[in-house]
């Protein structure tokens, strides 16, 4: 009997270790709890999600200066910030690229781009490229919507259904998800896909 118990215990340990390993490899899935981070913002201050005491949630967008798909979505990110900041969902942009692997994505370049476009939200530099693998982000742009009270991932994917042409959008994935969450409802579409630029690391 004791032996069986030991075997069962070992099995549980083995399975949970395997599950944990799997999660670190592929990053967060919808429903997972995320770890907070501390990254440098373009105004040289460090930003954590915990800093946003009154936020209901976050629209975390891995994006960069150089990817045409990121650039094509910049105005949409600005619009999301405008619409949802006052409602409690804060846009947090994170540049996951290693500037050594992507000319034009240095901290200085990020400051310049944010200034040029008038970003009214944090644009964080993932120094050492340590945060994006935890999320499992693979490309720019790549959006994660997280609720603050439980720090759970509610949505992973694209901003809307036409990444190349904002005039032809017929379904606004991020807006729909945040609207559902604000209304206390469960979002219906929790993962979507769009073409993007691979994250640049050496």
């Amino acid at each position: 009997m004791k032996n069986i118990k030991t075997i069962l215990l070992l099995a549980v340990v083995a399975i949970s270790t395997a599950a944990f390993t799997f999660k670190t490899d592929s990053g967060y899935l919808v429903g997972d709890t995320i770890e907070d981070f501390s990254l440098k913002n373009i105004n040289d201050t460090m930003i954590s999600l915990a800093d946003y005491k009154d936020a209901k949630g976050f629209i975390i967008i891995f994006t960069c200066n150089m990817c045409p798909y990121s650039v094509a979505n910049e105005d949409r990110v600005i619009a999301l910030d405008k619409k949802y900041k006052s409602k409690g969902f804060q846009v947090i942009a994170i540049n996951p690229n290693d500037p050594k692997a992507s000319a034009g994505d240095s901290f200085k370049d990020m400051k310049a781009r944010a200034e040029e476009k008038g970003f009214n939200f944090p644009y964080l530099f993932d120094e050492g490229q340590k945060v994006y693998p935890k999320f499992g982000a693979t490309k720019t742009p790549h959006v994660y919507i997280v609720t603050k009270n439980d720090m759970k991932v509610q949505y992973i994917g694209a901003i809307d259904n036409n990444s190349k042409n904002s005039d032809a959008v017929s379904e606004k994935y991020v807006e729909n998800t945040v609207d559902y969450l604000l209304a206390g409802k469960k979002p219906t579409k929790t993962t979507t896909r769009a073409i993007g630029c691979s994250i640049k690391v050496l």
Partner: protein
Amino acid sequence: MKKSILVLSFFLVFFSCKKNAEKIVVVDDFKPVKVVKNYNYEQLKPLLEKDDDTTYIVNFWATWCAPCVVELPYFEKIKKEYATKNVEVLLVSLDFPKQVDKKLIPFINKKKLQAEVVLLDDANEDFWIQAIDESWTGALPATLIYNKKNRKFYEQSFEYETLENELKNFLKL
């Protein structure tokens, strides 16, 4: 004396130009492209599931994608090296449609790409990305290798050796 040097240098210039011109003709028979076929996913799909004796390498790329441009020569080399071994290379560009004439076609002609290039212009990315492969999150570059016995999708960049090793696994089957 000055005159003869001048004449000599004229000869040299003329000779080296001629040599270069000959070289181009001999090395490749590239014909500049004027148009690139524009497909939606339904039109592209048959090219991703051919059921014959050929092994197909389908690379998803764009001129604006730096790592894609870096690995393009490896796909070109594979096409050349395996020309007699029933291997075909298709380059599916995800360039913005409005940049086909300005960027994509000049790029093909400048690089003298031998593999066929088609444009995939289909806004319904949420549908066709996972239809092409369940594991694809949408990052470029990405590559599909398939024949009638096997099929694998790679959301990654390739070196020539790693690409060739993958291909060899398909040819062994």
